[in-house]
């Protein structure tokens, strides 16, 4: 199989398109947490209960009037450990679901843009992922799947508190909306900490690429709502979109600034990153992420016309440990992975635009 074909198969189909504001926003995700009435939450539920959740939701989706489209149900216990990790790296399931085999499962639409996690922290977690900044669209889809499931199962819902979730931090809408932003300009101009602390002050959470507790690598941050109770979904999405747009503006200005103050310096940084990625033989994830961020910036700013600007999106997931091992079809030590990673990037960087 050619690398191009491998990337097409391995990365989710939803990533193929390049969505609005894709120079700054890599992807948008909306997640809704729901529980069924009268069934203990997964951490206390018995096997019969968890099995019933999977069966009922799966049937609800089949029976529902609108339909989910081509999809499949995967039980976590049937997945090899490596496949579970691949799904985590692709953001399709959470690390918690990957670890937990007590009748947990995932229903995933063919293009992987929509997935439903079952028996994770909550009975149901509906997730929609789209490229670029598409909060309304991601919510619209999640909302439809939510209605579809609710046509035939009874949710735990309270007039005062809204959707009742396992963790009090999700009570209310049960919605967590997030955008993944690529902000190399703000990092290079040293403004990132100031900007992100301002974001924190308006009640939004800023995290690294893989959610809570992860650091910022490759100049990528995840911005999401923290509050789920007392605000409507529309209010939450509007606020997140508003702040995202401000960050985009700031990033745009920072990039212009960098260009005006030192075009040569910027072109040099980009060129060196391109050179290193083109010839490196051993590379760690973090080093690769940093260099890929520079190359992607070079594409966005027109310095690297020959490189496909989707390079960062493609490799964001594929250079992670489990994906590399899946590609190699065997377990790899850390050193072997560093070599594999460098090979993959060297090949990918030579796939020309529109090739």
């Amino acid at each position, binding site marked *: 199989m050619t690398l191009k074909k491998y990337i097409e198969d391995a990365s989710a189909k939803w990533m193929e398109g390049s969505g609005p504001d894709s120079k700054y926003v890599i992807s948008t995700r909306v997640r809704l947490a729901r*529980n069924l*009435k*009268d*069934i*203990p*939450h997964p*951490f*206390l539920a018995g096997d019969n209960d968890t099995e019933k959740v999977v069966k009922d939701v799966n049937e609800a989706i089949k029976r529902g009037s609108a339909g989910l489209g081509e999809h499949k149900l995967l039980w976590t216990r049937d997945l090899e450990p490596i496949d579970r*990790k691949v799904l*985590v790296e692709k953001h399709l399931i959470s*690390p*918690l679901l*990957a*670890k937990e085999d007590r009748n947990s499962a995932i229903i995933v639409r063919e293009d992987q843009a929509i997935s439903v996690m079952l028996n994770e*922290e909550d009975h149901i977690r509906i997730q929609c992922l789209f490229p670029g900044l598409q909060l309304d669209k991601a919510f619209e889809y999640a*909302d439809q799947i*939510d*209605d579809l499931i*609710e*046509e035939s199962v*009874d*949710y*735990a*819902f*309270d*007039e*005062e*508190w*809204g*959707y*009742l*979730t*396992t*963790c*009090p*931090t999700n*009570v*209310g*809408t049960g*919605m967590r909306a997030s955008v993944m932003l690529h902000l190399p300009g703000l990092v290079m101009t040293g403004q990132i900490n100031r900007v992100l602390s301002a974001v924190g002050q308006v009640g939004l959470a800023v995290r690294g690429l*893989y*959610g*809570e*507790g*992860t650091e910022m690598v490759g100049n990528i941050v995840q911005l999401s709502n923290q*509050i*789920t*109770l*007392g*605000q*409507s*979904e529309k*209010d*939450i999405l509007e606020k997140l979109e508003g702040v995202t747009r401000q960050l985009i503006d700031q990033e745009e200005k920072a990039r212009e600034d960098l260009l005006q103050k030192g075009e040569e310096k910027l072109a040099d940084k980009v060129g060196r990153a391109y050179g290193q990625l083109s010839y490196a033989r051993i590379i760690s994830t973090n080093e690769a992420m940093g260099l890929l961020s520079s190359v992607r910036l070079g594409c966005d700013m027109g310095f690297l016309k020959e490189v496909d600007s989707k390079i960062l999106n493609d490799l964001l997931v594929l250079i*992670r*440990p*489990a994906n590399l091992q899946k590609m190699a079809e065997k377990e790899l*030590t*850390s*050193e072997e992975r560093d070599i594999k990673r460098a090979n993959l990037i060297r090949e990918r960087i030579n796939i020309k635009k529109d090739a």
Partner: protein
Amino acid sequence: MTCEECNKRPATVHFTKIINNEKTEVHLCEKCAKEKGGDLDFNVDPGFPINHFLSGLMDVDKSLDSKQFNKDLGQSDKLQCGKCNLTYNQFSQISRLGCSNCFTVFSKHLNPLLKRIHGKTSHMGKVPKRTGGNLRVKKRIGEMKEELQECIKREEFERAAEIRDEIRKLENELD
């Protein structure tokens, strides 16, 4: 750099430990790191322990009025959900609710906690289509009343009249 544990393989995992303001750096190979780390899985995000953070929020009560808090806690010791058997004490340790019935049983303690987390305690968002019943209509009426006020402010009286009629229709549905 070679691994500090086995002194054979190259160190690829680097930790910084800070204990009592004393910083130590540890350099290990992947194998030794896995053995030393026990349950730590270096490939998967361990996540922020949100439950510790929430228990901290619950503890705020202590500083506010310790007498009242201890009295409440004495009572809440006995609080237990009849459906899933989760006790209030267990909840305050793990910050996870066992089932939808826990919300009713622990409601007195949950309200202040939710207020601390979210700032508000009243749901303003989506209502389930099929089982939301009257609440959906009530919410719609509330939204339309706001819209009506906006129209009056803007002196859009024709639209205001339309909205008024729609509100009446919905109110009749509720009766």
